[in-house]
Protein backbone atom coordinates (compact mmCIF):
# COMPACT_ATOMS: atom_id res chain seq x y z
CA UNK A 1 0.00 0.00 0.00
CA UNK A 2 2.65 2.65 0.95
CA UNK A 3 4.85 1.72 -2.01
CA UNK A 4 1.86 1.99 -4.35
CA UNK A 5 1.03 5.37 -2.88
CA UNK A 6 4.58 6.59 -3.40
CA UNK A 7 4.52 5.34 -6.98
CA UNK A 8 1.31 7.25 -7.51
CA UNK A 9 2.81 10.40 -6.04
CA UNK A 10 5.63 10.14 -8.57
CA UNK A 11 3.10 10.36 -11.36
CA UNK A 12 1.61 13.59 -10.01
CA UNK A 13 2.76 17.05 -10.96
CA UNK A 14 4.53 17.77 -7.67
CA UNK A 15 7.64 15.98 -8.87
CA UNK A 16 7.84 18.27 -11.89
CA UNK A 17 7.70 21.60 -10.06
CA UNK A 18 10.75 23.87 -10.29
CA UNK A 19 11.60 27.08 -8.45
CA UNK A 20 11.17 29.07 -11.66
CA UNK A 21 7.61 27.84 -11.90
CA UNK A 22 6.95 29.07 -8.38
CA UNK A 23 8.39 32.49 -9.20
CA UNK A 24 6.14 32.65 -12.25
CA UNK A 25 3.14 31.90 -10.04
CA UNK A 26 4.03 35.07 -8.15
CA UNK A 27 4.41 36.98 -11.43
CA UNK A 28 0.99 35.74 -12.55
CA UNK A 29 -0.39 36.73 -9.16
CA UNK A 30 0.96 40.26 -9.52
CA UNK A 31 -0.53 40.56 -13.01
CA UNK A 32 -3.89 39.31 -11.75
CA UNK A 33 -3.75 41.78 -8.88
CA UNK A 34 -2.97 44.64 -11.28
CA UNK A 35 -5.82 43.62 -13.56
CA UNK A 36 -8.49 42.89 -10.96
CA UNK A 37 -7.67 45.23 -8.12
CA UNK A 38 -6.13 48.13 -10.05
CA UNK A 39 -8.15 47.72 -13.25
CA UNK A 40 -5.09 47.69 -15.55
CA UNK A 41 -6.36 46.47 -18.95
CA UNK A 42 -8.24 43.60 -17.28
CA UNK A 43 -9.69 42.27 -20.53
CA UNK A 44 -6.19 41.31 -21.61
CA UNK A 45 -4.15 41.04 -18.45
CA UNK A 46 -6.51 38.52 -16.85
CA UNK A 47 -6.24 35.98 -19.71
CA UNK A 48 -2.50 36.66 -20.03
CA UNK A 49 -1.90 36.17 -16.30
CA UNK A 50 -4.08 33.07 -16.21
CA UNK A 51 -2.23 31.67 -19.21
CA UNK A 52 1.10 32.44 -17.51
CA UNK A 53 -0.03 30.51 -14.45
CA UNK A 54 -1.13 27.54 -16.55
CA UNK A 55 2.15 27.62 -18.50
CA UNK A 56 3.98 27.09 -15.24
CA UNK A 57 1.94 24.19 -14.06
CA UNK A 58 2.86 20.64 -15.04
CA UNK A 59 -0.22 20.28 -17.22
CA UNK A 60 -1.03 17.54 -19.67
CA UNK A 61 -3.13 18.05 -22.76
CA UNK A 62 -3.00 21.84 -22.60
CA UNK A 63 0.19 22.95 -24.29
CA UNK A 64 3.33 21.27 -25.58
CA UNK A 65 6.56 23.06 -24.67
CA UNK A 66 9.86 21.68 -25.95
CA UNK A 67 13.32 22.88 -25.07
CA UNK A 68 15.21 23.55 -28.28
CA UNK A 69 18.96 22.94 -28.61
CA UNK A 70 19.54 26.72 -28.51
CA UNK A 71 18.02 26.85 -25.02
CA UNK A 72 14.71 28.43 -26.04
CA UNK A 73 11.32 26.96 -25.36
CA UNK A 74 9.17 26.23 -28.35
CA UNK A 75 5.49 26.05 -27.62
CA UNK A 76 2.34 25.10 -29.48
CA UNK A 77 3.72 22.25 -31.53
CA UNK A 78 1.66 19.18 -32.31
CA UNK A 79 2.36 15.79 -33.76
CA UNK A 80 0.90 14.56 -37.02
CA UNK A 81 1.09 10.85 -37.71
CA UNK A 82 0.38 9.18 -41.01
CA UNK A 83 1.91 7.28 -43.87
CA UNK A 84 2.97 8.22 -47.32
CA UNK A 85 0.58 7.34 -50.09
CA UNK A 86 1.70 6.15 -53.50
CA UNK A 87 0.74 8.59 -56.24
CA UNK A 88 -2.01 7.08 -58.42
CA UNK A 89 -0.92 5.80 -61.78
CA UNK A 90 -1.22 8.34 -64.55
CA UNK A 91 -0.95 11.28 -62.18
CA UNK A 92 2.81 11.41 -62.29
CA UNK A 93 4.98 13.50 -64.46
CA UNK A 94 7.80 15.91 -63.88
CA UNK A 95 5.62 18.61 -62.40
CA UNK A 96 4.47 16.53 -59.44
CA UNK A 97 7.50 14.33 -58.99
CA UNK A 98 8.58 16.29 -55.91
CA UNK A 99 5.17 16.13 -54.28
CA UNK A 100 4.46 13.37 -51.79
CA UNK A 101 1.06 12.59 -50.41
CA UNK A 102 0.40 11.62 -46.83
CA UNK A 103 -2.63 10.08 -45.27
CA UNK A 104 -2.94 11.53 -41.79
CA UNK A 105 -4.10 8.99 -39.26
CA UNK A 106 -3.67 10.88 -36.00
CA UNK A 107 -3.08 14.44 -34.84
CA UNK A 108 -1.85 14.74 -31.30
CA UNK A 109 -1.58 17.93 -29.31
CA UNK A 110 -2.97 19.89 -26.39
CA UNK A 111 -5.86 22.31 -26.46
CA UNK A 112 -3.69 25.37 -26.77
CA UNK A 113 -1.33 23.74 -29.24
CA UNK A 114 -4.16 24.27 -31.66
CA UNK A 115 -5.63 27.52 -30.34
CA UNK A 116 -2.17 29.12 -30.29
CA UNK A 117 -1.91 28.54 -34.02
CA UNK A 118 -4.00 31.69 -34.23
CA UNK A 119 -0.89 33.59 -33.15
CA UNK A 120 1.64 31.44 -34.99
CA UNK A 121 -0.29 31.71 -38.24
CA UNK A 122 -0.90 35.43 -37.58
CA UNK A 123 -4.66 35.11 -37.58
CA UNK A 124 -5.64 36.69 -34.26
CA UNK A 125 -4.11 40.19 -34.56
CA UNK A 126 -5.66 41.00 -37.97
CA UNK A 127 -9.03 39.59 -36.86
CA UNK A 128 -8.88 41.72 -33.71
CA UNK A 129 -8.19 44.67 -36.00
CA UNK A 130 -11.49 43.84 -37.73
CA UNK A 131 -13.23 44.47 -34.43
CA UNK A 132 -11.12 47.55 -33.72
CA UNK A 133 -12.11 48.98 -37.09
CA UNK A 134 -15.78 48.25 -36.39
CA UNK A 135 -15.47 50.05 -33.06
CA UNK A 136 -13.53 53.10 -34.28
CA UNK A 137 -15.03 56.35 -35.45
CA UNK A 138 -12.51 58.02 -37.74
CA UNK A 139 -14.73 61.13 -37.96
CA UNK A 140 -12.48 63.37 -35.81
CA UNK A 141 -9.48 62.40 -37.92
CA UNK A 142 -11.32 63.08 -41.18
CA UNK A 143 -12.55 66.42 -39.85
CA UNK A 144 -9.00 67.46 -38.95
CA UNK A 145 -6.68 65.34 -41.13
CA UNK A 146 -3.52 67.24 -40.24
CA UNK A 147 -3.55 65.38 -36.92
CA UNK A 148 -2.34 62.41 -38.94
CA UNK A 149 1.09 63.98 -38.61
CA UNK A 150 0.81 63.70 -34.83
CA UNK A 151 0.11 60.00 -35.21
CA UNK A 152 3.20 59.71 -37.40
CA UNK A 153 5.43 61.71 -35.06
CA UNK A 154 4.35 59.61 -32.12
CA UNK A 155 6.11 56.66 -33.73
CA UNK A 156 9.41 58.33 -32.80
CA UNK A 157 9.74 56.11 -29.75
CA UNK A 158 9.68 52.97 -31.88
CA UNK A 159 12.75 53.94 -33.82
CA UNK A 160 14.72 55.41 -30.92
CA UNK A 161 14.05 52.32 -28.83
CA UNK A 162 15.19 50.20 -31.73
CA UNK A 163 18.67 51.67 -31.41
CA UNK A 164 18.62 51.43 -27.61
CA UNK A 165 17.67 47.77 -27.73
CA UNK A 166 20.32 47.08 -30.30
CA UNK A 167 22.96 48.71 -28.13
CA UNK A 168 21.80 46.56 -25.20
CA UNK A 169 22.62 43.42 -27.16
CA UNK A 170 19.37 42.53 -28.89
CA UNK A 171 19.47 41.61 -32.55
CA UNK A 172 17.92 43.91 -35.15
CA UNK A 173 14.77 41.76 -35.36
CA UNK A 174 14.40 41.63 -31.59
CA UNK A 175 15.02 45.39 -31.34
CA UNK A 176 12.25 46.12 -33.83
CA UNK A 177 9.87 43.90 -31.87
CA UNK A 178 10.76 45.68 -28.63
CA UNK A 179 10.52 49.13 -30.23
CA UNK A 180 6.95 48.49 -31.37
CA UNK A 181 5.90 48.57 -27.69
CA UNK A 182 6.11 52.36 -28.07
CA UNK A 183 3.25 52.20 -30.53
CA UNK A 184 0.97 51.16 -27.66
CA UNK A 185 -0.90 48.81 -29.92
CA UNK A 186 -1.11 45.28 -28.53
CA UNK A 187 -2.24 43.33 -31.62
CA UNK A 188 0.41 45.01 -33.79
CA UNK A 189 3.10 44.31 -31.20
CA UNK A 190 2.10 40.64 -31.12
CA UNK A 191 1.87 40.48 -34.91
CA UNK A 192 5.38 41.89 -35.36
CA UNK A 193 6.99 39.94 -32.51
CA UNK A 194 5.60 36.69 -33.82
CA UNK A 195 7.13 37.43 -37.20
CA UNK A 196 10.52 38.73 -36.08
CA UNK A 197 11.22 37.52 -32.55
CA UNK A 198 8.74 34.87 -31.37
CA UNK A 199 11.04 33.99 -28.48
CA UNK A 200 10.28 37.39 -26.90
CA UNK A 201 6.54 37.34 -27.57
CA UNK A 202 5.44 36.84 -23.96
CA UNK A 203 7.62 39.58 -22.47
CA UNK A 204 6.77 42.06 -25.24
CA UNK A 205 3.02 41.45 -24.98
CA UNK A 206 3.06 41.81 -21.20
CA UNK A 207 5.13 45.01 -21.41
CA UNK A 208 2.91 46.47 -24.15
CA UNK A 209 -0.36 45.82 -22.37
CA UNK A 210 0.96 46.82 -18.95
CA UNK A 211 2.26 50.14 -20.24
CA UNK A 212 -0.93 50.78 -22.19
CA UNK A 213 -2.78 50.60 -18.91
CA UNK A 214 -0.19 52.89 -17.31
CA UNK A 215 -0.67 55.62 -19.92
CA UNK A 216 -2.40 57.93 -17.38
CA UNK A 217 0.71 57.71 -15.19
CA UNK A 218 3.45 57.78 -17.83
CA UNK A 219 2.23 60.51 -20.17
CA UNK A 220 1.18 63.51 -18.01
CA UNK A 221 4.66 64.34 -16.60
CA UNK A 222 6.12 64.30 -20.12
CA UNK A 223 3.25 66.42 -21.44
CA UNK A 224 3.73 69.00 -18.69
CA UNK A 225 7.48 69.04 -19.15
CA UNK A 226 7.26 69.84 -22.85
CA UNK A 227 4.44 72.40 -22.83
CA UNK A 228 3.89 75.85 -21.37
CA UNK A 229 0.74 76.81 -19.46
CA UNK A 230 -0.23 79.08 -22.34
CA UNK A 231 -0.06 76.17 -24.78
CA UNK A 232 -2.09 73.90 -22.52
CA UNK A 233 -5.08 76.28 -22.57
CA UNK A 234 -5.22 76.62 -26.35
CA UNK A 235 -8.79 76.12 -27.49
CA UNK A 236 -9.20 74.41 -30.80
CA UNK A 237 -11.82 75.08 -33.44
CA UNK A 238 -14.94 72.97 -33.36
CA UNK A 239 -14.71 69.93 -35.64
CA UNK A 240 -16.86 70.02 -38.75
CA UNK A 241 -19.44 67.29 -39.26
CA UNK A 242 -18.28 64.48 -41.53
CA UNK A 243 -20.66 62.79 -43.95
CA UNK A 244 -21.11 59.06 -44.32
CA UNK A 245 -19.70 59.14 -47.85
CA UNK A 246 -16.52 60.82 -46.61
CA UNK A 247 -16.05 58.10 -44.02
CA UNK A 248 -16.50 55.39 -46.63
CA UNK A 249 -14.01 57.05 -48.98
CA UNK A 250 -11.57 57.41 -46.07
CA UNK A 251 -11.58 53.68 -45.36
CA UNK A 252 -10.85 52.89 -48.99
CA UNK A 253 -8.17 55.59 -49.39
CA UNK A 254 -6.29 54.57 -46.24
CA UNK A 255 -6.37 50.92 -47.23
CA UNK A 256 -5.12 51.57 -50.76
CA UNK A 257 -2.36 54.00 -49.74
CA UNK A 258 -1.07 51.85 -46.88
CA UNK A 259 -1.13 48.60 -48.85
CA UNK A 260 0.71 50.25 -51.73
CA UNK A 261 3.34 51.77 -49.43
CA UNK A 262 3.82 48.91 -46.97
CA UNK A 263 2.41 45.66 -48.36
CA UNK A 264 3.69 43.78 -45.32
CA UNK A 265 1.14 45.55 -43.12
CA UNK A 266 -1.68 44.55 -45.47
CA UNK A 267 -3.27 41.99 -43.17
CA UNK A 268 -3.64 44.53 -40.36
CA UNK A 269 -4.70 47.50 -42.47
CA UNK A 270 -7.12 45.56 -44.67
CA UNK A 271 -8.94 44.07 -41.71
CA UNK A 272 -8.99 47.40 -39.84
CA UNK A 273 -10.55 49.16 -42.79
CA UNK A 274 -12.91 46.29 -43.57
CA UNK A 275 -14.29 46.56 -40.04
CA UNK A 276 -14.59 50.33 -40.38
CA UNK A 277 -16.22 50.11 -43.81
CA UNK A 278 -18.80 47.66 -42.46
CA UNK A 279 -19.53 50.11 -39.65
CA UNK A 280 -19.86 53.18 -41.80
CA UNK A 281 -21.83 51.69 -44.68
CA UNK A 282 -24.69 51.13 -42.20
CA UNK A 283 -26.21 48.21 -44.10
CA UNK A 284 -24.34 45.37 -42.38
CA UNK A 285 -25.53 45.83 -38.85
CA UNK A 286 -25.30 42.15 -37.91
CA UNK A 287 -21.72 41.88 -39.16
CA UNK A 288 -20.74 45.05 -37.31
CA UNK A 289 -22.26 43.82 -34.08
CA UNK A 290 -20.49 40.48 -34.47
CA UNK A 291 -17.17 42.23 -35.13
CA UNK A 292 -17.63 44.63 -32.22
CA UNK A 293 -18.65 41.95 -29.75
CA UNK A 294 -18.47 38.23 -30.36
CA UNK A 295 -15.49 38.08 -32.73
CA UNK A 296 -13.25 40.51 -30.86
CA UNK A 297 -14.20 39.08 -27.46
CA UNK A 298 -13.52 35.46 -28.39
CA UNK A 299 -10.25 36.37 -30.08
CA UNK A 300 -9.13 38.57 -27.20
CA UNK A 301 -9.71 35.66 -24.86
CA UNK A 302 -7.75 33.24 -27.03
CA UNK A 303 -5.02 35.77 -27.82
CA UNK A 304 -4.46 36.73 -24.20
CA UNK A 305 -4.38 33.16 -22.97
CA UNK A 306 -2.12 32.01 -25.80
CA UNK A 307 0.31 34.85 -25.10
CA UNK A 308 0.28 34.02 -21.40
CA UNK A 309 1.07 30.41 -22.19
CA UNK A 310 4.32 31.49 -23.84
CA UNK A 311 5.52 32.84 -20.47
CA UNK A 312 7.26 29.70 -19.35
CA UNK A 313 9.53 30.32 -16.38
CA UNK A 314 12.57 28.87 -18.11
CA UNK A 315 12.41 31.46 -20.88
CA UNK A 316 10.64 34.38 -19.15
CA UNK A 317 12.88 34.64 -16.08
CA UNK A 318 15.85 36.02 -17.93
CA UNK A 319 17.73 39.35 -17.90
CA UNK A 320 16.25 40.07 -21.33
CA UNK A 321 12.78 40.39 -19.82
CA UNK A 322 13.93 43.13 -17.43
CA UNK A 323 15.59 44.95 -20.34
CA UNK A 324 12.39 44.71 -22.39
CA UNK A 325 10.31 46.12 -19.54
CA UNK A 326 12.73 49.07 -19.19
CA UNK A 327 12.94 49.67 -22.93
CA UNK A 328 9.16 49.70 -23.09
CA UNK A 329 9.03 52.79 -20.86
CA UNK A 330 11.65 54.47 -23.03
CA UNK A 331 9.60 53.73 -26.13
CA UNK A 332 6.44 55.10 -24.55
CA UNK A 333 8.19 58.23 -23.32
CA UNK A 334 9.75 59.11 -26.67
CA UNK A 335 6.52 58.40 -28.54
CA UNK A 336 4.62 60.75 -26.24
CA UNK A 337 7.31 63.40 -26.61
CA UNK A 338 7.32 62.99 -30.39
CA UNK A 339 3.60 63.72 -30.63
CA UNK A 340 3.72 66.74 -28.30
CA UNK A 341 6.76 68.26 -30.02
CA UNK A 342 5.20 67.74 -33.46
CA UNK A 343 2.10 69.65 -32.33
CA UNK A 344 4.31 72.52 -31.16
CA UNK A 345 6.12 72.50 -34.48
CA UNK A 346 2.81 72.59 -36.35
CA UNK A 347 1.78 75.62 -34.30
CA UNK A 348 4.94 77.40 -35.42
CA UNK A 349 4.09 76.62 -39.05
CA UNK A 350 0.40 77.41 -38.72
CA UNK A 351 -0.12 79.98 -35.93
CA UNK A 352 -3.62 81.00 -37.12
CA UNK A 353 -5.16 77.64 -36.44
CA UNK A 354 -3.21 76.33 -33.46
CA UNK A 355 -3.31 72.83 -32.05
CA UNK A 356 -3.27 72.24 -28.32
CA UNK A 357 0.00 70.28 -27.90
CA UNK A 358 -1.64 68.13 -25.26
CA UNK A 359 -3.43 66.18 -28.00
CA UNK A 360 -0.06 65.26 -29.53
CA UNK A 361 0.51 62.67 -26.84
CA UNK A 362 -2.60 60.83 -28.04
CA UNK A 363 -0.64 59.90 -31.15
CA UNK A 364 0.48 56.76 -29.36
CA UNK A 365 -2.41 54.41 -30.09
CA UNK A 366 -3.83 53.17 -26.75
CA UNK A 367 -7.33 54.02 -27.95
CA UNK A 368 -9.11 55.76 -26.24
CA UNK A 369 -7.02 55.95 -23.07
CA UNK A 370 -4.44 58.35 -24.50
CA UNK A 371 -7.18 60.68 -25.78
CA UNK A 372 -8.77 60.68 -22.34
CA UNK A 373 -5.43 61.65 -20.81
CA UNK A 374 -5.29 64.67 -23.16
CA UNK A 375 -8.82 65.65 -22.11
CA UNK A 376 -8.06 65.34 -18.40
CA UNK A 377 -4.79 67.27 -18.68
CA UNK A 378 -6.48 70.00 -20.71
CA UNK A 379 -9.26 70.41 -18.19
CA UNK A 380 -6.75 70.65 -15.41
CA UNK A 381 -5.80 74.08 -16.76
CA UNK A 382 -9.11 75.14 -18.35
CA UNK A 383 -12.24 73.44 -17.11
CA UNK A 384 -14.23 74.41 -20.20
CA UNK A 385 -11.68 73.19 -22.72
CA UNK A 386 -12.85 69.88 -24.16
CA UNK A 387 -10.04 68.19 -26.08
CA UNK A 388 -11.40 64.66 -26.21
CA UNK A 389 -12.76 64.64 -29.74
CA UNK A 390 -9.75 66.56 -31.05
CA UNK A 391 -7.45 64.03 -29.39
CA UNK A 392 -9.30 61.14 -30.99
CA UNK A 393 -7.87 62.25 -34.35
CA UNK A 394 -4.19 61.60 -33.54
CA UNK A 395 -5.26 58.66 -31.40
CA UNK A 396 -6.71 56.68 -34.30
CA UNK A 397 -3.97 58.02 -36.59
CA UNK A 398 -1.54 56.33 -34.20
CA UNK A 399 -3.16 52.95 -34.91
CA UNK A 400 -2.52 53.42 -38.63
CA UNK A 401 0.98 54.77 -37.97
CA UNK A 402 1.97 51.81 -35.81
CA UNK A 403 0.68 49.36 -38.42
CA UNK A 404 2.70 51.17 -41.09
CA UNK A 405 5.82 51.10 -38.90
CA UNK A 406 5.29 47.39 -38.31
CA UNK A 407 5.03 46.91 -42.07
CA UNK A 408 8.32 48.76 -42.52
CA UNK A 409 10.07 46.53 -39.99
CA UNK A 410 8.71 43.38 -41.61
CA UNK A 411 9.62 44.60 -45.09
CA UNK A 412 13.19 45.37 -44.10
CA UNK A 413 13.92 42.65 -41.58
CA UNK A 414 11.42 39.89 -42.06
CA UNK A 415 12.27 38.60 -45.51
Amino acid sequence: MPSGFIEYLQTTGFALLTWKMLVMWAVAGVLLWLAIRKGFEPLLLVPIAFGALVANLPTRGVLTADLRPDGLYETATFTVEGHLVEAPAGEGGDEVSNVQRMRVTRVEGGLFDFISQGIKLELFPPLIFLGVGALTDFGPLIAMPRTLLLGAAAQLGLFITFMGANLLGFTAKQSASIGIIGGADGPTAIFLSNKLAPELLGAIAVAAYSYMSLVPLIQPPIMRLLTTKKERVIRMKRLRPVSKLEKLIFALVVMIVCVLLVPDASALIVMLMLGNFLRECAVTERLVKASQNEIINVLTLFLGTSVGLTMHGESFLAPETIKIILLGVVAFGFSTAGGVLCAKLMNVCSPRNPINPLIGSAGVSAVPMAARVSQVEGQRYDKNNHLLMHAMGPNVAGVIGTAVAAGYFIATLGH
Partner: protein
Amino acid sequence: MTAIIPDHLVLAVLPEYPPVAESIAYQLSGLLVVLLALGGIWLMLETIGALFRRSDGEAKSRAAAPTDSPSVVEPRIEPVDVANEPISPSLTHALIAGTVHAAFQGRARIMGVAAVPSPEVQAIIAAAVHSIFDGRARIVAVKPLNTDTSWAREGRRDIFVSHRVR
Protein backbone atom coordinates in the same frame (compact mmCIF):
# COMPACT_ATOMS: atom_id res chain seq x y z
CA MET B 1 -3.20 37.48 -53.16
CA THR B 2 0.42 37.26 -52.02
CA ALA B 3 2.69 39.89 -53.44
CA ILE B 4 6.21 38.79 -54.24
CA ILE B 5 8.51 41.68 -53.43
CA PRO B 6 11.61 41.88 -55.59
CA ASP B 7 14.87 42.18 -53.71
CA HIS B 8 15.59 45.64 -55.06
CA LEU B 9 12.38 46.93 -53.45
CA VAL B 10 13.46 46.01 -49.93
CA LEU B 11 14.22 49.35 -48.34
CA ALA B 12 17.09 48.31 -46.15
CA VAL B 13 18.72 45.15 -44.97
CA LEU B 14 20.41 45.40 -41.64
CA PRO B 15 22.94 43.10 -40.10
CA GLU B 16 21.96 41.68 -36.73
CA TYR B 17 24.09 44.23 -34.92
CA PRO B 18 24.36 47.28 -37.17
CA PRO B 19 26.81 50.11 -36.52
CA VAL B 20 25.30 53.22 -34.92
CA ALA B 21 25.42 55.31 -38.10
CA GLU B 22 23.68 52.60 -40.09
CA SER B 23 21.13 52.16 -37.33
CA ILE B 24 20.34 55.90 -37.29
CA ALA B 25 19.93 55.93 -41.06
CA TYR B 26 17.62 52.94 -40.78
CA GLN B 27 15.49 54.67 -38.16
CA LEU B 28 15.28 57.87 -40.15
CA SER B 29 14.14 56.03 -43.25
CA GLY B 30 11.54 54.19 -41.16
CA LEU B 31 10.20 57.43 -39.73
CA LEU B 32 10.18 58.86 -43.25
CA VAL B 33 8.07 55.93 -44.50
CA VAL B 34 5.54 56.48 -41.71
CA LEU B 35 5.46 60.23 -42.37
CA LEU B 36 5.07 59.64 -46.11
CA ALA B 37 2.19 57.22 -45.60
CA LEU B 38 0.28 59.35 -43.12
CA GLY B 39 1.23 62.61 -44.85
CA GLY B 40 -0.04 61.20 -48.15
CA ILE B 41 -3.33 60.25 -46.52
CA TRP B 42 -3.50 63.75 -44.98
CA LEU B 43 -3.17 65.42 -48.37
CA MET B 44 -5.78 63.13 -49.91
CA LEU B 45 -8.19 63.75 -47.05
CA GLU B 46 -7.69 67.52 -47.32
CA THR B 47 -8.51 67.32 -51.03
CA ILE B 48 -11.56 65.13 -50.51
CA GLY B 49 -12.68 67.29 -47.56
CA ALA B 50 -12.36 70.45 -49.65
CA LEU B 51 -14.55 68.89 -52.35
CA PHE B 52 -17.17 67.93 -49.80
CA ARG B 53 -17.12 71.36 -48.15
CA ARG B 54 -17.50 72.98 -51.56
CA SER B 55 -20.45 70.82 -52.53
CA ASP B 56 -22.05 71.45 -49.11
CA GLY B 57 -21.59 75.21 -49.57
CA GLU B 58 -23.18 75.10 -53.00
CA ALA B 59 -26.11 73.11 -51.68
CA LYS B 60 -26.60 75.62 -48.87
CA SER B 61 -26.42 78.62 -51.19
CA ARG B 62 -28.94 76.96 -53.54
CA ALA B 63 -31.27 76.44 -50.62
CA ALA B 64 -30.85 80.02 -49.44
CA ALA B 65 -31.39 81.58 -52.88
CA PRO B 66 -34.87 83.21 -53.41
CA THR B 67 -37.20 81.35 -55.74
CA ASP B 68 -39.60 82.80 -58.34
CA SER B 69 -42.59 80.81 -57.20
CA PRO B 70 -43.28 81.61 -53.60
CA SER B 71 -46.08 79.07 -53.40
CA VAL B 72 -44.26 77.03 -50.77
CA VAL B 73 -42.95 79.16 -47.97
CA GLU B 74 -40.52 77.53 -45.58
CA PRO B 75 -41.46 78.32 -42.01
CA ARG B 76 -38.82 80.49 -40.44
CA ILE B 77 -37.56 79.19 -37.16
CA GLU B 78 -37.17 81.92 -34.62
CA PRO B 79 -35.39 81.50 -31.31
CA VAL B 80 -37.90 80.78 -28.59
CA ASP B 81 -37.86 83.19 -25.72
CA VAL B 82 -39.31 81.23 -22.88
CA ALA B 83 -37.24 82.80 -20.16
CA ASN B 84 -40.14 84.76 -18.76
CA GLU B 85 -42.94 82.44 -19.71
CA PRO B 86 -44.25 79.96 -17.22
CA ILE B 87 -43.95 76.42 -18.47
CA SER B 88 -47.33 74.75 -18.45
CA PRO B 89 -47.81 72.01 -15.86
CA SER B 90 -48.61 69.51 -18.58
CA LEU B 91 -45.33 70.27 -20.34
CA THR B 92 -43.39 70.03 -17.08
CA HIS B 93 -45.11 66.78 -16.27
CA ALA B 94 -44.39 65.41 -19.73
CA LEU B 95 -40.75 66.50 -19.54
CA ILE B 96 -40.22 64.78 -16.22
CA ALA B 97 -42.06 61.66 -17.34
CA GLY B 98 -40.14 61.48 -20.61
CA THR B 99 -36.76 61.98 -19.01
CA VAL B 100 -37.44 59.47 -16.25
CA HIS B 101 -38.72 56.98 -18.82
CA ALA B 102 -35.57 57.42 -20.92
CA ALA B 103 -33.22 57.27 -17.94
CA PHE B 104 -34.76 54.16 -16.44
CA GLN B 105 -35.79 52.57 -19.76
CA GLY B 106 -39.40 52.33 -18.71
CA ARG B 107 -38.62 50.50 -15.49
CA ALA B 108 -39.61 53.41 -13.25
CA ARG B 109 -43.01 54.92 -12.57
CA ILE B 110 -43.58 58.43 -11.25
CA MET B 111 -45.69 58.24 -8.14
CA GLY B 112 -45.80 61.98 -7.60
CA VAL B 113 -43.73 65.11 -7.55
CA ALA B 114 -43.02 66.76 -4.25
CA ALA B 115 -44.34 70.24 -3.68
CA VAL B 116 -40.81 71.56 -3.48
CA PRO B 117 -38.80 69.74 -6.15
CA SER B 118 -35.68 68.01 -4.92
CA PRO B 119 -32.30 68.89 -6.52
CA GLU B 120 -32.55 65.66 -8.54
CA VAL B 121 -35.93 66.64 -9.98
CA GLN B 122 -34.66 70.13 -10.68
CA ALA B 123 -31.70 68.61 -12.52
CA ILE B 124 -34.05 66.42 -14.54
CA ILE B 125 -36.20 69.41 -15.45
CA ALA B 126 -33.11 71.44 -16.38
CA ALA B 127 -31.73 68.64 -18.57
CA ALA B 128 -35.06 68.09 -20.26
CA VAL B 129 -35.63 71.78 -20.92
CA HIS B 130 -32.08 72.14 -22.24
CA SER B 131 -32.56 69.15 -24.52
CA ILE B 132 -35.94 70.25 -25.87
CA PHE B 133 -35.16 73.94 -26.35
CA ASP B 134 -31.57 73.26 -27.49
CA GLY B 135 -30.07 75.55 -24.89
CA ARG B 136 -32.21 78.54 -25.89
CA ALA B 137 -34.26 78.52 -22.74
CA ARG B 138 -33.29 79.45 -19.22
CA ILE B 139 -35.21 78.20 -16.20
CA VAL B 140 -35.95 81.09 -13.92
CA ALA B 141 -38.15 79.29 -11.46
CA VAL B 142 -39.89 76.00 -10.97
CA LYS B 143 -43.31 76.56 -9.46
CA PRO B 144 -45.16 73.60 -8.00
CA LEU B 145 -48.88 73.37 -8.55
CA ASN B 146 -51.15 74.21 -5.67
CA THR B 147 -52.99 70.95 -5.40
CA ASP B 148 -52.48 67.37 -6.40
CA THR B 149 -55.74 67.33 -8.29
CA SER B 150 -54.34 69.82 -10.77
CA TRP B 151 -51.86 67.20 -11.95
CA ALA B 152 -54.62 64.70 -12.43
CA ARG B 153 -56.75 67.29 -14.23
CA GLU B 154 -53.92 68.23 -16.52
CA GLY B 155 -53.29 64.58 -17.29
CA ARG B 156 -56.92 64.02 -18.16
CA ARG B 157 -56.99 67.15 -20.29
CA ASP B 158 -53.86 66.00 -22.12
CA ILE B 159 -55.36 62.63 -22.88
CA PHE B 160 -58.61 64.23 -23.88
CA VAL B 161 -57.12 66.71 -26.32
CA SER B 162 -54.83 64.09 -27.82
CA HIS B 163 -57.78 62.13 -29.21
CA ARG B 164 -60.47 63.20 -31.58
CA VAL B 165 -63.71 63.07 -29.66
CA ARG B 166 -66.77 62.43 -31.77
